[in-house]
């Protein structure tokens, strides 16, 4: 056989996975270290390490520091990480399934559905913990309605249009309810702009399994996700059962988005920017795109939250930070890859 040009990509992807994983661990440590109370780096490290199995460190720090690290900062950092990972993977999946670079996890009306659920949750006085549950239900319900409205054998365009229309409708109800809500308005607005301020371990413990199981399923289907980026006729000719698998993957992506949104509110931008950045750097193969998006999304949102809670006098909404930091970086990537995008 004659010498063939090597089909390959510039950046070695398995090494990148390892490098990003190490970076994630470092970012978690830094995220836990920095905060409004100054804690020495070594103390932070020791407190974290003392929690690992088989590590014996005699506590030589005040209990209050351990509480700050382990009960306040660590759950927040971990929740930021898992939510960033979830939104990035869901965004990547939606973009592939809908052949649409502008698709984000909220494409099918999830955001407005979750928002309506949350607003209704806020209306039960003193029942703050109903909000996540209602938001989750609202998110799933809106996607289900979109799917039902678009009908069987619908085209992708119909589905997206149904999502946009339902989103607008639900959004109007949310605005109306918010304005007429009186005292609870502040809480609602806070939730709508997305926040990790009230993170707890209990929330992380709910989101983590959903995102991990969903993420693994998406990754397992990633070769078919690659093929579904072709048109439907080609995907079928290559043996993919398009309608069934598309629905299955939308359900998975919706689940992990809904689980994230219900605790943190609507955090925009991550789900669009991270998958595109990953695609531009490492290529479009979903078998790498999804795990790389998981890690990059986690790192990005932990850093964004770190900035959000440390830079200003009070807390800055995290959506502001994701857009402020993410957009220039993305524009830079875009500028250097114009040809690839076209």
């Amino acid at each position, binding site marked *: 056989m004659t010498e063939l*040009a090597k*089909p390959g990509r510039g950046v070695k992807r398995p090494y990148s996975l390892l490098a990003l994983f190490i970076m994630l661990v470092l970012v978690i440590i830094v995220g836990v270290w920095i905060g409004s109370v100054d804690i020495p780096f070594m103390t932070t490290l020791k407190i974290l390490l003392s929690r690992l199995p088989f590590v014996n460190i005699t506590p030589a720090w005040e209990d209050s520091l351990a509480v700050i690290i382990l009960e306040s900062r660590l759950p927040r950092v971990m929740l930021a990480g898992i939510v960033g990972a979830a939104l990035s993977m869901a965004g990547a999946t939606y973009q592939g399934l809908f052949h649409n670079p502008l698709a984000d996890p909220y494409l099918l009306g999830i955001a407005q559905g979750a928002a309506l659920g949350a607003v209704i949750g806020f209306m039960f006085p003193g029942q703050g913990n109903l909000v996540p549950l209602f938001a989750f239900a609202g998110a799933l319900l809106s996607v289900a309605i979109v799917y039902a409205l678009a009908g069987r054998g619908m085209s992708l365009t119909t589905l997206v249009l149904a999502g946009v229309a339902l989103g607008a409708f639900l959004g109007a109800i949310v605005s109306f309810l918010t304005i007429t809500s009186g005292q609870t308005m502040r809480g609602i607005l806070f939730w709508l702009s997305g926040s990790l301020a009230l993170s707890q371990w209990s929330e992380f413990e709910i989101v983590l399994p959903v995102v991990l199981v969903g993420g693994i399923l998406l990754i397992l289907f990633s070769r078919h996700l690659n093929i579904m980026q072709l048109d439907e006729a080609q995907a079928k000719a290559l*043996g993919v059962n398009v309608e069934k698998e598309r629905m299955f993957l939308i359900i998975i992506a919706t689940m992990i988005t809904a689980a994230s949104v219900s605790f943190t509110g609507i955090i925009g931008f991550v789900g669009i920017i991270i998958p595109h950045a990953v695609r531009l750097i490492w290529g479009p193969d979903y078998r790498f795109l999804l795990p790389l998006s998981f890690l990059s999304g986690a790192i990005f949102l932990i850093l964004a939250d770190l900035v959000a809670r440390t830079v200003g006098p009070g807390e800055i909404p995290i959506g502001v930070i994701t857009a402020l930091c993410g957009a220039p970086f993305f524009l830079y990537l875009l500028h250097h890859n114009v040809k*690839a995008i076209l």
Partner: protein
Amino acid sequence: MATVEVQNIHLAYDKMLVVEDVSFKAESGDISGLIGPNGSGKSTIIKALYRLITPSSGKILLDGRNIGNYSQKELATMVSVVPQFPLLPSLFTAYEIVLMGRNPHMGLFDWEGREDHLIARRAMEMVGISTLAPRRIGELSGGEIQCVVIARALAQGTRIILLDEPTSNLDIGREVEVLDLLKKLARGKGVTIIMALHDLNLAAQYCDQIILLNKGRIYKSGQPEEVITGRTVKDIYGAGSIVFPHPLNKKPTVIPVAGTSRMSE
């Protein structure tokens, strides 16, 4: 090897009938050509042959078994397709696209093995596009993309290959290369090839059997010299032309004559 039998099929889009009562049989080792004017139903028949649309009546049998009874995956191991306007994502490399042809032979959670890579490389080599392997789809020309999709169909390793205007974007050299390759696959490996073609001369040169369609019905079918005659060309296409045997291989050859269409009256 594989035979394709089409028995009295009717095909419709949203109840609008576009193909009526079409029957033919394609044998292993043969190239069958669907020809006819724009909108005569060529592409629609190709679509039915890989179950993108289902006949409203009539049957399609692959190796004697109804096409509806194959699973999507089984069908893809049996039939590969080169569509007329394939949409390909621009960031994938040509090689990655060709490798997708191995999908029906793999379990859902498998990765491509050594052999799959070997087959994909060989397919690109056969089509003569090895050098395109690392290039992104977004950088390729229409003709190059057409070759990538043909290589993918070869990598799929099926006994039936369907092609819809496979040479529409190719220059004359490429055209002959690709069609020679298909002829070799048919003769050498007994692959059943069915393609829709615009170009009557290419159809005459390469097809063992020609099915001439007009307004969704078969106007005439048979060997090239039976179907492509001055009379049928005038009847179906309306334009005047002379048809004569090719000086080298006696296949019918069509040369249009200027000033003979309805427009010139």
